[in-house]
């Protein structure tokens, strides 16, 4: 039996010749197992940069957690903005009433101005309508 040192000095061809001449047979299924291992090693070496199944689950969990946190922040922000209430300017209802009266008076005066302008233009509108009616 050769020693390890002697075997290490042998070339590949010589090792193959020795294997062919050997009476010992390889265990059953060894060739298939070896080929499977080789294929697995090739696969792992190709997918070094990609996460394997366990890491993929962790990545998905992190993404969903981030999305849930974001939705929660948006909901809290929306709720806070909806619940914002301004403070009453007046503490005396009489003063508040006076303000409302003044506001409606202003709205009314502006609307009156608009109506007056419409009335001034009424003759021109009537003339236009008459001309259009004549055409049709």
């Amino acid at each position, binding site marked *: 039996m050769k020693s390890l040192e002697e075997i290490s000095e042998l070339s590949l061809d010589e090792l193959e010749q020795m294997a062919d001449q050997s009476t010992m047979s390889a265990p059953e299924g060894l060739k298939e197992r070896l080929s499977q291992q080789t294929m697995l090693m090739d696969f792992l070496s190709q997918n070094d940069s990609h996460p394997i199944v366990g890491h993929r689950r962790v990545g998905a969990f992190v993404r969903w957690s981030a999305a849930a946190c974001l939705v929660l922040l948006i909901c809290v922000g929306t709720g806070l903005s909806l619940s914002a209430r301004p403070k009453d300017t007046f503490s005396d209802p009489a003063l508040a009433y006076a*303000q409302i009266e003044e506001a*409606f008076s202003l709205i009314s005066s502006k*609307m009156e101005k608009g109506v007056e302008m419409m009335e001034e233009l009424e003759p021109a509108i009537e003339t236009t309508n008459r001309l259009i009616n004549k055409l049709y």
Partner: protein
Amino acid sequence: MKKILMLLAAVLTLAQSFAETGRDVYLRYSDKESVAAVYISPVMFRLIGKLPDIEVSDDDINLSPILQSLKGFYLLSCEDEQTARQLKADVNRLMDKGKYEMLMSVKEDGEKVEIYIVSDGKEVSSLIMTVSEDDECVFMSIDGKMAQKDLEKLLASSRGE
């Protein structure tokens, strides 16, 4: 995925910054230095309704029919040119949403008055009036459930019709 989430967050934050009602416009500008703000709450309107002696002379407008239906009164008076411009832009954006219908627009002597309402034909749920000049802007918003007929009578009563 991160980019999509960031984009979604940015869009939603931007959407929140846009005013949706007169109240939102008021909340946005009421704290600014160059803006005078007045707010009357529904509680105050109820108190007004309980006042024993509201004098309603011939010259005054009779508010009693719609007082109880008012839910909020918001007034902003802006005398700063930049803030006034921002306020006008915000109001225009609010009107572009399509919820409000223009009732009237009058332009005279450099002053532009616009009145918008939200109405279903029988009730006016919101009225907004803006009066804007070169460097000033007045914004007024009234929320409530005002019967259209009562509102028309109210506005006509000051014209002496």
